[in-house]
């Protein structure tokens, strides 16, 4: 079944031109899911996390609608069938 990853349009080019990816949930945490994603799409992985593995400051990730910063962070469980959405936060100028 896998996990559906939904990307903002601005990142679609880094995922082969699509905003929707089916990804194996791996070990079941968000960190492991993002590792899997980055192994296939390294540039996409770098846009979401820095080289120390942290989510970039102005990138928000939701697992089934919940902001992971207020859940388990990168340790948030991502079960089979979950929807993981990546969104840019309100920032810039």
């Amino acid at each position, binding site marked *: 079944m896998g996990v559906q990853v939904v990307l903002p349009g601005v*990142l679609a080019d880094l995922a082969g031109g699509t905003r929707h990816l089916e990804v194996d949930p791996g070990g079941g945490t968000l960190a492991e899911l993002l590792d899997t994603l980055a192994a296939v799409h*390294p*540039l996409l992985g*770098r*846009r*979401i996390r*820095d*080289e*120390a593995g*942290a989510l*970039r400051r*102005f*990138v928000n990730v939701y697992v089934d609608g919940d902001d992971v910063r207020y859940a388990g962070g990168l340790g948030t469980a991502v079960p089979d069938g979950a929807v993981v959405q990546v969104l*840019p*936060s309100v*920032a*810039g100028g």
Partner: protein
Amino acid sequence: MTDLLAIGTRKGLWLARSDDDRRTWSLDEPHLLAQEVAAVSIDTRRPTPRVLAGIQYGHWGPTVMWSDDLGASWQETDSGAIRFPEDTGAALARVWQLRPDSADRPDVVWAGCEPHSLWRSTDGGCSFDLVRGLWDHPHRPTWEPGGGGGAVHTVLPDTASDRVTVAMSTGGVYVSEDGRTGWTPRNSGISAVFLPEPPPEYGQCVHKVAVDAAGPDRMYAQNHFGVFRTDDAGRAWTSIAEGLPADFGFPIVASPSTPGTAWVVPLVADMQRVPPEGRLRVHRTRDAGETWTALGTGLPDDFWAAVMRDGFCADEARPTGLYVGTRDGCVYASADEGDTFALVADHLPDVLVVRAARID
């Protein structure tokens, strides 16, 4: 002949070209639009010039990109050209400086970054290695971030030896004779008005350092208050600010060909970062800072913006060309060492960096 001017701004990169010995310039459409371009270099040591850009992808983080076709296409390394090793626990925050080494080291490019770090590439800027000798320096935990962030913002490789001089905010000037190890602070004589007297061995907020054409031992520094010169590779610095209307500012540029010639763009003070009397003026010395002359032909009055530390540069043509990019999005160029300036671009985003080179 063609001269290329790269203009990095808070929201993209512009390239301007001149085919008439820098009398007139034409501006391209923007490159890397909406990305902050805080560092840029034009590497002319290659068969085709390479434009390197240190960018901040807005929400998506910093990286280094390059173009070998003058901006028609851009590349980046999948894993990131600059990546802190895992054991450091650090992450790249911003690329502040990209500096090609000498012609006889054609693939070596240096990068100065935030957090305070120096990087060396041996593949033309596609990938960099952290210079551990500086990262592991016992002083590093006490280097404070300046208002703009804690970064190595100036990298000066010596063309005739392995010596590398760096400057950082706020740590001051450090020198390594092999570019890797033995980094020694060289700030004696440089003031630090934000610290109790006497000035410390290190911790100064040196804004920019430039090497005189006479040789690597003579350098100039624009400090956070104070303009200084050293004649012994930084072991001792003396003030050369007398004759300037203010000793605050960010950039300092030395002539690549004429010993003793350098330029600054004074601002009133740290709490008043505007030019004296609201007039954008470049000040030039022909005698290594003993005297200064204000240059304003073609530069604006009623000007209340500033020039950032890399918003001012010289080319290597004769006579030396100067390029001044301002925080209100204007770029002024001089083909006569500052005697006269002409507007190259206006209404751009804040200019963070300018670099110029003759490309054929």
